[in-house]
């Protein structure tokens, strides 16, 4: 795809490897891409907690028409990101998973909830700063007595 | 009945017991016979169904307990007997315990209505078809009771489905029975049986003039028995176990066994209405007189019922379940008009000649 046009619209995006790295405005980028190019599936959103402490999101877009993959990546500054669930419904599921495992809050996605972890679980296990504390897994009769 | 009665009175008189005692106690005998026979029949039926389902699905079926798995059902019943009866905390305990009893009692009575042979009809009234219909529909009430009292949403679903289903299938069934009543000019099961007598044996059966009615009745019976493909009230993949989800131990066993007893009773009822009841399909009996002929008559009735039950098992192995709205639509849109047509056909067959002559 034509990166120059892309550069004009979204300041500071660059090509890193096989993916486009953008600084911000993920929602607008995805919207722009889906409106102008035939990318119709958001295959997955991958979150990575980088060694520098920032969370990287990789959006894997795919076009069933010309069978092309487009990876768009963003480095988050905090634990806030823009939701793209109004463009792709499947993002709702991915964002929920990322919220559960990385603690990233997606503005615009209302039904974020703990998915795999218990509702009252502290911490997000796939973060690198997560402390694995096995004592929490021990069966506590007082707490679990239903 | 008279035959058995005289045997009994004769036996009492030999031992110098007054006849009044015999008159009073006589009516307990049939129920003892029914109760004993019923247990055997149900135990065999459960085994046969499991065995045949096994064969249909290329399995062996139960084959561990006893020779050929013959004792499997008894083992299962014993296991259920030993299990704890659990009553849910929030259930309506009185109704919850009442429901299994209410499902069993009318079933016993329904079996008493059936003429097993020309002499063995324990309850013989002039309109025992109606009596049978009432008794056969009674378990539905107890199913609803069970579903309601369980305080379980799945049970309630099963109960509600059962009511809807039986209500809509009772109507075409009644019309079909009416057409049989017209053909036989009677509402008595023995008289209906005898009306099918012919020297050509099976050609006198009402299944021939009323083949449409026979098929409708068979379908309605499947629906009333909650058998596949109408097993919605206990649809395993949807409602877990339907109305008996919360039942355990002997109470569950009663529901389970009564289902099979009902199946047997209904198969016999259908055989009486359309397949000549205890009449031999060859026009004459192998035994000419004596008590053996009664046994032969009962044998023919059981054989006819067994064939119908085999078809029911076959259908269960072959068909998926209907959707609830299709089920209701099928009854009201297809079966009901057809059964009315069947009634008119029966009237024409019976009185066509007379109308033509007039």
């Amino acid at each position, binding site marked *: 795809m034509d990166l120059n046009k892309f550069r004009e619209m979204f300041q500071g995006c660059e090509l890193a490897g096989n993916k486009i790295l953008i600084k911000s405005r993920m929602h607008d980028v995805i919207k722009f891409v889906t409106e102008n190019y035939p990318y119709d599936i958001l*295959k997955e959103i991958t979150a990575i907690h980088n060694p520098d402490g920032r969370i990287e999101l990789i959006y894997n877009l795919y076009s069933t028409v010309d069978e092309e993959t487009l990876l768009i990546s963003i480095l988050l500054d905090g634990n806030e990101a823009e939701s793209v669930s109004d463009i792709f*419904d499947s993002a709702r599921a991915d964002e929920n998973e990322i919220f559960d495992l990385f603690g990233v809050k997606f503005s615009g996605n209302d039904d974020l909830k703990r998915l795999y972890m218990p509702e009252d679980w502290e911490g997000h296990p796939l973060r690198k700063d997560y402390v694995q504390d096995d004592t929490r897994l021990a069966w506590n009769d007082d707490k679990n007595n239903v | 009945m008279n035959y058995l009665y005289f045997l009994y009175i004769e036996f009492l008189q030999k031992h110098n017991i007054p006849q009044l005692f015999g008159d009073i106690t006589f009516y307990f005998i049939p129920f003892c016979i029914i109760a004993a026979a019923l247990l055997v029949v149900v135990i065999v039926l459960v085994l046969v169904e499991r065995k045949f389902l096994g064969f249909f*699905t290329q399995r062996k079926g139960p084959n561990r307990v006893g020779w050929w798995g013959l004792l499997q059902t008894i083992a299962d019943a014993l296991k259920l007997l030993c299990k704890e009866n659990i009553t849910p905390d929030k259930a309506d305990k009185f109704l919850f315990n009442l429901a299994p009893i209410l499902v069993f009692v009318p079933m016993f009575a329904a079996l008493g209505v059936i003429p097993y042979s020309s002499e063995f009809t324990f309850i013989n009234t002039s309109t025992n078809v109606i009596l049978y219909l009432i008794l056969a529909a009674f378990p539905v009430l107890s199913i609803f009771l069970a579903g309601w009292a369980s305080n379980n949403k799945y049970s309630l679903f099963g109960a509600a489905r059962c009511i809807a289903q039986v209500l809509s299938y009772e109507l075409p069934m009644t019309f079909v029975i009416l057409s049989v009543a017209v053909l036989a000019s009677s509402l008595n099961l023995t008289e209906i049986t005898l009306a099918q007598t012919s020297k050509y044996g099976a050609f006198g059966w009402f299944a021939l003039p009323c083949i449409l009615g026979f098929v409708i009745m068979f379908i309605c019976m499947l629906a009333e028995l909650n058998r596949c493909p109408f097993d919605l009230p206990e*649809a*395993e*993949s949807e409602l877990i176990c339907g109305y008996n989800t919360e039942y355990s131990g002997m109470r569950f066993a009663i529901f389970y066994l009564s289902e099979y007893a009902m199946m047997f009773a209904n198969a016999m009822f259908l055989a009486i209405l359309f397949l000549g009841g205890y009449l031999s399909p060859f026009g004459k009996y192998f035994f000419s007189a004596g008590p053996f002929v009664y046994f032969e008559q009962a044998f023919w009735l059981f054989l006819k019922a067994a064939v119908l039950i085999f078809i029911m098992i076959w259908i269960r192995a072959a068909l*998926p379940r209907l959707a609830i709205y299709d089920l209701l639509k099928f009854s009201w849109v297809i079966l009901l008009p057809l059964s009315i047509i069947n009634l008119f056909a029966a009237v024409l067959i019976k009185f066509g000649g007379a109308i033509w002559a007039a």
Partner: protein
Amino acid sequence: MMTKTTFKLNLGPQHPSTHGVLRLLLELDGEKIISCEPDVGYLHRGMEKMAEQMSYIQYLPTVDRIDYLAGFFYSELLCRIVENAMEVELPDKVRAIRVMLLELNRISSHLLWVGAFLMDLGAVSPFFYAFREREMILRYFEKISGQRMMYNYFVFGGVRHDIGFLEDVEEIISILPGKIDDYEKIITENPIFIRRTVEKGILQKEMALNNGITGVNLRASGVDFDLRFEDSLYRGFDIKTIVLDGKDSFARYKARILEMRESIKIVAQALEYLKKSGSLEQRLINPINLKLPEGDYFADIEAPRGTASCFVRSYGDKNPYRLKWRTGSYYSVNLLRKLLAGEYLNDAIAIAGSLDIILPEVDK
């Protein structure tokens, strides 16, 4: 005055037809579903977290468990990641072995689905028939790998040992088409089955794409999307993809039946090659101290339940820095929220069954 009241029904996690431990929180009006909220996570084993603490060879046996009905696909994905990273080209014989096993695995998975789907619809017999045929395939897998479901047969750079018992495969592919004909006779033409599947659970093309549905479910909605065409593993194989335009449960059923038939043809091609080929010559990657070079690696494959993919970021360590699985069922489960609303309870079971959801894949 009548007031309309609704009530909540907890379908699962211990329900006979949720294929594992799916919990659907349904809001019902009578038997009509107003809203559906899937709740997953009852089988979560932390596959992604595990990977971060294990070396690649330690992790390899566990990935079969992501989808216990199609284990080969996930070990193939992990092997492919490592092979791509180490730049190893697979010999043709290894490719043929893998394609044959993958397609057999796809057939066995679809067979189980046919049985389970019909079970959801209330028919008992097809379940046993399908299991009978699946058993042949599982026996073969057991013969070559020692395991019926968790194979651990693919290793980095090849397969664990040379393939054998090819006559078994020959028997399977000679018997199966006839058996599938039998299924079609008792299922496809059954009026009750048709009533319960045709026009039920319609999944429009746009809705499917928007919800990330892939695989057979997407192809039954009329989208020609099959990763096997661009897959280097399937290079040289004659593949035909099944695209149906029915969009309903029946189309999804039909697509799977037809796909089984196509898979049999692919297996036959691989078998033909393997019968002619000589002994196995492969260059395995030494798994001891295996370190992937720094970078992102991505592999995807057409699994029986949709696109499965694996993403690995490595910083040159023994273990991946981050490993992410994408599984088809996860998106199918989330689709239920939209697909089930407005359906009757017994249709809902059939529709959910037709999507071929398997819970270990959802929970990972």
